[in-house]
């Protein structure tokens, strides 16, 4: 799935990384607990989270994640946006809740990836 498809499916607003919308995303992970995200290996994944702090971007950075979607309409502050820009990570926000967001992406074929 392409990053721009995620934007369309979730009717999301792109906050930064507009130039990377053509990237491929193979798996997804939805969590507010960053240690859970770090426990699972994901290849070129998108992270959905209701948590808004710099550690969400840092977690994505360590995991080589392509894109972060903040659910429930949450908006990151400028410090978080700058961190993501510096790391070429796409940030989006959707008004959908976590459960609905994951379900909509799953329905369109995105999967969770293997757990190790």
């Amino acid at each position, binding site marked *: 799935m392409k990053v721009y498809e995620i934007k369309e499916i979730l009717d999301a607003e792109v906050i930064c990384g507009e130039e990377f919308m053509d990237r491929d995303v193979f798996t997804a992970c939805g969590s507010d*607990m960053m240690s859970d995200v*770090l426990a699972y290996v994901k290849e070129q994944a998108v992270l959905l989270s209701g948590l808004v702090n710099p550690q969400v971007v840092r977690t994505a*950075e360590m995991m*080589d994640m392509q894109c972060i979607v903040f659910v429930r309409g949450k908006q990151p502050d400028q410090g978080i946006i700058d961190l993501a820009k510096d790391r070429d990570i796409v940030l989006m926000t959707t008004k959908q809740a976590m459960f609905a967001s994951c379900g909509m992406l799953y329905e369109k074929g995105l999967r969770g990836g293997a757990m190790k």
Partner: protein
Amino acid sequence: MSNLKLHFDVPGDDFTRAGEASGKVKKTLKDLGFNPEVVRKTVIALYEAEINLVIHAGGGEIDVEISPECIDMVLTDQGPGIPDVALAMKEGYSTAPDNVRSLGFGAGMGLPNIKKYTDDMKIDSVVGEGTTMYLKVFTN
């Protein structure tokens, strides 16, 4: 090639900066051309350990030594120490306060994650004096 050594002081009072050192190590390893899987394992373990320095120990120091064969990391702090290392290694066991959980950590996954992503892990801890953690990731 002589081994590359990196040193970082990790401040204990600024959670927003936790992960800066790990991010710099990641960039260095990537620039040196290490296998992406090796880079990821190394920095995930280091990032969890760096978070621990900030949330449990009031900060500390990180030393990284990079050779073609392996990446050695030593994290030192003068924090409260770990009374029971075996218990602390259990998945789900956590002594982190609630405010840390609201930040996305403190689920008792940190040390198990570190063990999972490294080839060798050793913890020396003295209650009231501090903790030193030794981590190694082989590059092949």
